[in-house]
């Protein structure tokens, strides 16, 4: 077991493309860190560099305090789990799991007992003499995990290990991975493009975009205090609503009404180079049916009225989609996020996703009054993507002084 330190690590490919740029990251011993981001953000390249499968162009990588830049994968004492599982098709489950131990020249008895033990943990014992071709996807995935844990390596590296499983099994395996990591206490770096996996699994989440780290922190912190537009849009499902907001006379004119702003942000906006246009971000759960809000809460927010487009009842609550007039928020980050989600179609006008209480009597087609929480909104600079409501790492809404 060991800590992993990336010190200004970069990856340039021979054709000049920069996949990863100056990454600084310290992963503590026993920590579970998730690298997440849209495809092409450099997360897998970063993982491969830690594994030694990809050369490091610049910077230093230390595992357990030791510089390993020039060490071959086999000398780094790490175990990797692949999206394709990468099981050796010519070997049985037992042989697959014993393979790294055999290469390490352990004696037969030790190998056997270690394999049996790992098999027991992952409930693979009855499958030990089968070949990968005769296993289901979930079983293959467990064998891949088993092959990683038998060695008790310094670190586990997982490259989208659950992506090939169907949705239900993925949720199940998520808890298995989580429990296993806690049990073993081995440093783990886990790559995924799925923000739900990132939120649920990791001690800390690293959000990457275009080869650079956007923000590092515990999942809840990233969710509540996103540093920029990209992080705000990437984390959360359904994702945050973004609205165009024009700065006008100490107020923000938006499609859902004029939003007052607090002293601190106003000060920032009076600077000469301050943007005149902002992007307002609100998460779906910070809306509520105006009928269901008590007076005390009502004072902390604003109300608006809009036509209801679609109502999706989830049982515990309702996702309600509104169409609002006005300009759509635009920024490079938002386009990138939309492209990654495959959402190049969105119809006309801006639309809002809200999560209302299940008790709400909202119906499709009607106009509905909706309340939203001013303390929870975020304001972003469209050109830099910076979150203006963030002060010393905390976000405190538009009204903060």
């Amino acid at each position, binding site marked *: 077991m060991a800590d992993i330190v990336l010190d200004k690590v970069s990856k340039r490919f021979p054709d000049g493309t920069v996949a990863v740029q100056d990454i600084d990251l310290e992963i503590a011993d026993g920590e579970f860190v998730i690298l997440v981001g849209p495809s092409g953000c450099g997360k897998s390249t970063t993982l491969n560099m830690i594994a030694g499968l990809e050369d490091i162009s610049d910077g230093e990588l230390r595992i357990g305090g030791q510089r390993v830049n020039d060490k071959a994968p086999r000398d780094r004492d790490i175990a990797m789990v692949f999206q394709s599982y990468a099981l050796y098709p010519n070997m049985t489950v037992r042989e697959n799991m014993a393979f790294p131990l055999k290469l390490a020249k352990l004696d037969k008895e030790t190998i056997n007992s270690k394999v049996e033990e790992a098999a027991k943990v992952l409930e693979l014992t009855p499958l030990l003499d089968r070949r990968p*071709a005769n296993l289901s996807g979930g079983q293959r995935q467990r064998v891949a995990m088993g092959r990683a844990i038998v060695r008790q390596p310094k670190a586990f590296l997982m490259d989208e290990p659950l992506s090939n499983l169907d949705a239900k099994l993925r949720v199940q395996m998520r808890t298995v991975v989580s429990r296993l990591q806690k049990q073993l206490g081995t440093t783990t770096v886990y790559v995924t493009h799925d923000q739900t996996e990132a939120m649920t699994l990791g001690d800390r989440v690293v959000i990457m975009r275009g080869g650079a780290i956007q923000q590092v922190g515990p999942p809840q912190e990233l969710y509540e205090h996103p540093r920029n537009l990209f992080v705000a849009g990437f984390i959360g499902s359904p994702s945050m609503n973004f609205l165009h907001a024009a700065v006008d006379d100490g107020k923000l004119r938006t499609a859902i009404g004029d939003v007052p702003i607090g002293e601190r942000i106003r000060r920032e906006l009076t600077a000469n180079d301050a943007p005149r246009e902002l992007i307002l971000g609100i998460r779906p759960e910070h809306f509520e049916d105006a009928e269901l809000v008590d007076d005390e809460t009502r004072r902390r927010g604003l109300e608006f009225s809009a036509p209801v487009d679609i109502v999706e009842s989830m049982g515990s609550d309702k996702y309600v989609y509104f169409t609002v007039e006005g300009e759509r928020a635009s920024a490079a980050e938002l386009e990138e996020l939309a492209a990654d989600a495959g959402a190049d179609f969105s119809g006309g006008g801006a639309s809002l996703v809200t999560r209302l209480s299940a008790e709400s009597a909202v119906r499709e087609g009607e106009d509905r009054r909706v309340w939203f929480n001013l303390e929870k909104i975020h304001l972003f600079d469209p050109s830099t993507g910076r979150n203006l409501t963030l002060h010393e790492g905390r976000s405190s809404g538009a009204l903060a002084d």
Partner: protein
Amino acid sequence: MSVNATPAGARVAAEESGKPAVPAQHSGRRSKAPLSENKKAERKLGWLLCAPAALVMVLVTAYPIIYSVWLSLQRFDLRFPDERKFVGLENYVTVLTNGFWWTAFGVTALITVVTVVVELVLGMGLALIMHRTLVGRGIVRTAALIPYGIVTVVAAFSWRYAWTPGTGYLANLFSDGAPLTERASSLAIIMLAEIWKTTPFMALLLMAGLALVPEDLLKAASTDGATAWQRFTKVMLPVMKPAILVALLFRTLDAFRVFDNIFVLTAGGNETSSVSMLAYNNLIRGLNLGIGSTMSVLIFLTVAVIAFVFVKLFGTAAPGSDEGERR
């Protein structure tokens, strides 16, 4: 039929050994029925699709084979057409007790074993180079394939001239004159010509096999602690096994029928005849249809045995068995 028996047997075995484990499977989704209606229909379609090719094969190969078997059972020398008569297996006794036949057989076996082994090693090297080359991939591949693209007889002549004393650029490297007039050096040159010519073919077949090895598998092996050599022997070779066996089968069958190079380089002189050469000499030059056909049949039988052994070796790795890749 034995081709099909092995994988089917393996499947049944897998099915049985799988049964006790089924309750423990959380996620088992595979069908337990050995042959569903769908699969039966698929199999039937498979036979139907093969039928035209099989029919043509029967027409163009079965008839000549049967005819030469018929000829091999007769005394039939075109120089003495009147003495033609059915002699049973007498021709076989004649051939199989004849020193020339066994010398030729030994020469052929030697050429086959040596060339195929050397070609496999060189071809694997070449395939690895072509597979790994990132720059000028097209040029490298084209260059490597040139020998295979040259007509064998033409290539053989260029080798003959090269080894001809006085004018040949290779013959002059060796002081004592004419290498094609001595048995050992002649055989070496024949094998060299064969290897030079067909290594690219081997490389091409092996490269197709290399493409079957998933990149992740090699990455996994290197993080598991395997050296480059261990990755090659423990991961690549087993995954490539079917492709290697196919390549070996093709080349062995080809090599056993070696003819053109010998014909041009030595014309069988100094006991360098292969069995094909000998059969040709008896059948076409000697006009002895009986003995010539007997030799042809014997070559055919040997080749059949080689093929049979290889197919046995394929086992569950035989192409078309669904052991390896099940979806």
